[in-house]
């Protein structure tokens, strides 16, 4: 009889324990949120972010999740519209109870939600795509309160600094011309470039602009050439930049042309074709040219799962690293939003796809993971965006593991 009682008690115990385990497994999924452009002209940005996050989450869950708990991505389409982003962030936090959010596709959206995130929602957000400086340098940061916004991508002041410093110091161009878009991002970009040139003790030899609808930049290019510009710095997107390079070709103009990350994706080569050869762009990540094994694995996972190549690798890679950063913070500190936020500020080292961080990814005063030291300059070479590296002989690109081609500093042509 005592034998049976013992068996029954054992069975009861096992049943209760397994029910509890199952119950805790199901009820305790960790929810991450995302709201970004999944439709419309900016949809390639939002889709890349979502895909990068999905690949990371599935990898983590396949290995057992975070401390045994599975990650779940709840995503929304904000149509690149800040009004929708704000509403969806509220819904994600208040109704879906997400504990972390991957940032949106639109800088305007992030600027709109930043105050609400810091004052009311208090859920950490890591942005892979939006580069307006004030997203992370926000009111809460300035007032010394907890700042819930983080970033793993290019950011405004840093990009301006990087572009100017690279051309002035690494390429030795003291005479720099500006050619910017009169639209929003072009205006802030122009301000950044002028500021950094001034900090370097220089001023632009010419300061030209163009509109959305300009298809012919003849006057601007000739003026820049007459002013003696050794290189032209630019902030604009794919469409206008296509016209710039086509105009340069028409005028047989070889002035080196350097653009901010608006043209760091295959769409530029698709629109401009080999007129785009030799154009430099600043970015954080490129997936062309020799890659690390981890990056190769990510690229393969992406093409296997989605059956196409990445249209904007920088965002997918950023989202992937963002999820892993959340994981690191959760493992260290806990699963509540406040704990995750504090945990993010306390990651001393991190092997990310963007780079191998051997210093703290974020600190209390610096919520931008990628600084100017981490940004790279890339050159459009025969349809591929190759990272420009420097050694004692000067700048070069690697066409593949075995071929190194140096770049002529005054024309950006391959030697």
């Amino acid at each position, binding site marked *: 009889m005592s034998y049976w009682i013992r068996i029954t008690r054992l069975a009861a115990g096992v049943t209760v324990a397994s029910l509890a385990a199952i119950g805790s497994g199901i009820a305790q999924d960790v929810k991450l949120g995302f709201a970004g452009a999944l439709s419309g002209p900016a949809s390639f940005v939002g889709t890349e972010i979502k895909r990068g996050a999905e690949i990371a989450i599935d990898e983590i869950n396949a290995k057992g999740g975070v401390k045994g708990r599975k990650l779940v991505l709840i995503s929304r389409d904000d149509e690149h519209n800040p009004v929708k982003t704000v509403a969806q962030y509220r819904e994600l936090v208040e109704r879906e109870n997400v504990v972390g959010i991957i940032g949106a596709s639109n800088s305007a959206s992030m600027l709109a939600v930043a105050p609400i995130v810091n004052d009311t929602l208090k859920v950490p957000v890591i942005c892979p795509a939006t580069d307006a400086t004030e997203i992370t340098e926000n009111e809460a940061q300035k007032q010394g309160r907890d700042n819930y916004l983080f970033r793993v991508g290019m950011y405004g002041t840093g990009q301006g600094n990087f572009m100017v410093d690279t051309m002035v110091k690494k390429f030795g161009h003291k005479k720099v011309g500006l050619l910017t878009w*009169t639209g929003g991002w072009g205006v802030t970009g122009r301000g950044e470039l002028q500021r950094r040139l001034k900090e370097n003790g220089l001023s632009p030899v010419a300061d030209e602009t163009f509109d959305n609808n300009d*298809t*012919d930049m*003849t006057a*601007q290019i000739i003026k820049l050439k007459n002013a003696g510009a050794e290189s032209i710095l630019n902030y604009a997107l794919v*469409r206008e930049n296509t016209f710039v390079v086509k105009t340069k070709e*028409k*005028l047989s103009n070889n002035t080196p042309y350097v653009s901010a990350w608006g043209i760091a994706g295959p769409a530029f080569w698709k*629109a*401009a074709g080999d007129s785009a050869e030799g154009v430099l762009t600043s970015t954080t990540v490129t997936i062309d040219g020799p890659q690390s094994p981890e990056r190769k694995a990510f690229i393969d996972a992406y093409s296997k799962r989605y059956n196409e190549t990445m249209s904007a690798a920088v965002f997918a890679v950023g989202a992937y690293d963002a999820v892993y950063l959340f994981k690191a913070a959760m493992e260290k500190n806990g699963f509540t939003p406040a704990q995750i936020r504090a945990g993010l500020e306390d990651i001393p080292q991190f092997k990310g796809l963007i780079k191998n961080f051997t210093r703290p990814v974020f600190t209390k005063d610096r919520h931008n993971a990628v600084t100017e030291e981490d940004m790279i300059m890339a050159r459009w070479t025969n349809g591929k965006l190759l990272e420009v590296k420097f050694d004692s002989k000067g700048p070069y690109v690697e066409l593949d593991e075995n071929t190194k081609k140096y770049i002529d500093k005054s024309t950006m042509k391959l030697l």
Partner: protein
Amino acid sequence: MYFFLQIALSGIATGAIYGLIAVGYSLTFMTTKALNFALGMWVMLGGMLTYSLNVQYGIHPLIVLPVVMVALFALGLVAERFSVYPFLRAGSDVWVMSTLAVGFLMIDLAEIIWGRNPTPVPPFFGKDPVYLGQVSILPQQLLIIAAACVTFVGLDFFYRRTLPGKAFRAVSHSGAVSSLMGINTRRIEALSYAVAAALAGIAGFLVVPLTLAEPQMGTVLGLKAFAIAIIAGLAAPRGILICGLLYGAFEGLVSGYLYTGIRDIVGFTIMIVALYARPEGIFGRRQEERA
């Protein structure tokens, strides 16, 4: 000197496009006193069709051109019948809204059919610039200037030397009297709309290798062309072409010698001044109604 010539030449090439589009406005205005306000969108349609036929299906431009002309001509007939004629018949001006509505419809349809990303169309004569001395111009731009000249001469010939041309002029002078004289006014009205649409298609076909093919490509072009048509006088198609070339050159020179940003301000200010000084347009003729 090089600077002036290069800028002016580029500007004239751009102006030729404005002129070609602007002629469409006058064609319909002269016969019906109604305009296709969305002419720019029709240009876009011509461009998108060119992209589809030439790039996606690999058809040679010489065959694409007549196809685009015929397609837009037919569509123009349909659009006129349903978005202009009913309102003309009722004596109302609602054609302003309805032609615009057709235009917006076309943009949305184009976005659905072709997507929103700008795509390149290869220039018909290659992309190596042609050199006239030191000054360079793209073959495609030369083609556009040539097309504008041909249109100029062709229109002149049409209106003065051909019977249908004279019928057009009769209808623009007075529709009622023309029908009394045995001219099928209704047919002339519909035809003028359709021909304007076909012309817009040609303009789109010519310009799309220079710009990129995308649904929004026509909107600003149509607006500038409209301004030029007004400055030159809606009833003077040849004057419109000349004004187009001049306006394009002027835009380029302002960008080159002053500042790119004020180009449109200066241009539209001149339009207002010109209208104030000569309300009927620079090449227009003062209309007087005698009782």
